[in-house]
């Protein structure tokens, strides 16, 4: 039987902590038993990189997917591979890259599991070309409170798509078969351009994103006036084989262990308006004005923050919140309004990430929808912050946009109903596979995702 212990965990933002049982099951049978006997709610947890409270359930039981490590083999012709829910993108890349494959979608960190990638239906810099993670999942095995099921876009598609971005509420993902991307080298060709304000950044993205597989802009939310939202746009593609010649072998170019580590919580307030403004300024000046055809290692291009372990501790004991939203293309002005609102309220914000999304998939709860997305890192502490974020919720909701559950830790249930109009389809799947409401997280309680209000 799986070992059980009681522990306090939080999301990556280190805010609302929850005390609960943590169990690490090793088989489908163990998971079924745990779901059967659970009293106060169960939710799966991977590597804890969600910023808020989706992978915790105060007073309940967290099922860690750490022991679900089934791996491969990788089919060399199709790129298909079956992976346990607990396999991290880090593990996967260290095996796949030397074989000439890459993960079809990666977020800004390799420290996410396959289970988490599906539950949040994660996106990366290539969403405008490749869509989100679930678009590359062929099928998955899921232990629901009513039993083990195998689902795919053709077999119980409602459950398959409800699991995408379903924040773990449809059950515990056991394994998934995903299609990897064939690559010719472990390098990326990168074009970097610097832009003096938000309009310039956005114009450049509209004009040229389609020429690149990967595109993302980092914008400065501490500037105002003519320099409001100045930014650095980096775009790239997997480099052809000849680029790699004379460079380190694929094995050497694969992700490395962090070089630095933050061993303890920094004092809250270390990251304040002054230090963040200074950082943003230095970072902007350091970027090349216009550099075409740079060559970067995969880890540098995709996962720069993985170079510093536990960087979230820089935000101190009070922690930080992320705020990521998307608005339709014809509501692009919301991006400017949001940056102006933050800038004028003196709420400090680290570099924000700006990106364009392509078409959405069929999931009712998956975050990516076509348009512009902006992600902000905000230290907890400024008294104005909660109210400013509530205002942004209104702005985003009215623009027909939505906020990302994997980043959220403070939204209200009313906003969810407005932002996720297909939530009833999601709830009807939950009512079918989990009629007793066994699967629950603090996020689900806080946002009333089950629609029962006393979940």
């Amino acid at each position: 039987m799986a070992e059980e212990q009681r522990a306090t965990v939080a999301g990556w933002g280190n805010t609302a902590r929850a005390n609960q049982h943590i169990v690490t099951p090793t088989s489908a049978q163990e998971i079924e038993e745990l779901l059967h006997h659970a009293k106060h709610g169960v939710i799966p947890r991977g590597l804890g990189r969600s910023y808020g409270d989706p992978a915790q359930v105060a007073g309940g039981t967290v099922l860690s997917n750490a022991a679900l490590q089934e791996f491969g083999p990788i089919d060399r012709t199709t790129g298909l591979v079956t992976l346990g829910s607990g396999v991290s993108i880090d593990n996967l890349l260290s095996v796949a890259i030397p074989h000439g494959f890459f993960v079809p979608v990666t977020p800004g960190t390799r420290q996410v599991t396959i289970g988490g990638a599906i539950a949040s239906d994660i996106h990366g810099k290539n969403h405008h070309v490749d869509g989100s993670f679930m678009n590359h999942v062929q099928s998955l095995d899921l232990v629901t409170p009513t039993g083990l099921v195998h689902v795919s876009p053709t077999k119980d598609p409602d459950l398959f798509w409800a699991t995408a971005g379903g924040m773990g509420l449809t059950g515990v993902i056991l394994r998934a078969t995903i299609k990897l991307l064939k690559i010719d080298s472990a390098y990326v060709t990168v074009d970097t351009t610097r832009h003096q304000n938000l309009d310039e950044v956005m114009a450049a993205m509209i004009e040229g994103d389609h020429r690149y597989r990967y595109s993302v802009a980092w914008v400065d939310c501490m500037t105002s006036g003519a320099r409001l939202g100045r930014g650095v746009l980096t775009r790239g593609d997997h480099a052809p084989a000849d680029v790699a010649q004379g460079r380190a072998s694929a094995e050497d170019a694969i992700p490395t262990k962090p070089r630095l580590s933050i061993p303890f919580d920094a004092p809250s307030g270390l990251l304040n308006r002054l230090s963040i403004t200074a950082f943003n300024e230095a970072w902007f000046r350091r970027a090349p004005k216009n550099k075409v055809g740079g060559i970067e290692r995969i880890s540098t291009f995709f996962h720069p923050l993985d170079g510093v372990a536990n960087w979230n501790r820089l935000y101190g004991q009070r922690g930080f919140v992320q705020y990521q939203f998307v608005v339709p293309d014809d509501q692009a002005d919301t991006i400017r309004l949001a940056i102006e609102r933050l800038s004028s309220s003196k709420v400090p914000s680290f570099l924000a990430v700006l990106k364009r999304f392509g078409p959405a998939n069929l999931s009712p709860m998956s975050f990516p929808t076509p348009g512009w997305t902006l992600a902000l890192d905000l230290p907890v502490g400024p008294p104005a912050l909660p109210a400013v974020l509530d205002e942004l919720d209104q702005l985003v909701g009215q623009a027909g946009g939505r906020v990302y559950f994997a980043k959220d830790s403070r939204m209200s249930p009313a906003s969810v109903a407005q932002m996720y109009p297909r939530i009833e389809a999601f709830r009807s799947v939950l009512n079918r596979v989990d009629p007793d409401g066994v699967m629950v997280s603090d996020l689900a309680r806080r946002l009333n995702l089950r629609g029962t209000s006393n979940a």
Partner: protein
Amino acid sequence: MRDAFGQPQSAIVFGGTSDIAQATVRQLVAKRLDRVVLVGRNATALGELQQALTNSGCSTVEIVVSDAADPHSAPRAVDDAFAALGQPADLVLMAVGLLGDQRANDDSAERTAEMFTVNTTWPAAVLAGVRGRMVAQGYGQLVVLSSVAAIRTRRANYAYGAGKMGLDGYARGLAASLAGTGVTVQIVRPGFVTTKMTAHLDKGPFATTADAVATVIVKGLATKSTVLYAPGMVKFVFAILRHLPEALWRRLPG
């Protein structure tokens, strides 16, 4: 469920019509609080607050009438409050208190007994009942209104001060007993607060308002502090005052 800023969505308030409780609940409702049970003695006053909270968008406001002067009513008050909420309580606020008239209490066994019943016995009994509920739900925050009067008793209000001292000490032991359960306790020690309870008195030094105390509570919910002072300054003032020689202490005004 509390959010990243420590703000609760559901709460039970004992002593719901006290000025500090009302101010706190109003501030919480302006944030994320949406389901509230108000427990108190005065059904009319509770009804007025219920209406005000409903008007400001609270989806559920329930009332439980219970009299803290009757210690036997405590278990029933806990049962009724949790039943009325119908879901786990993110927050329980204990705001019952009676300042009394010390001169009138001085020689009255009956009135002194009532002071301890209302300020100590009933709240402690309720907290014991709440403890079990909160441990069973596996999470939650308990906020207990104490007073700087609990730090050292004074001539002017020693029955009140001693009563709060008992509750304050009980609450600190309660906090220790809950370590590792996911349930936390915070004790709030306001200085002189200008409320209906103190309207007949001269303002003490560092006087504050119910709203200011509420702000300290609402902010404090996001912290790990076990004891909160309102205003923060009285913490340092009383750190010194408590060590004054008795002869000096007795002569202090107020």
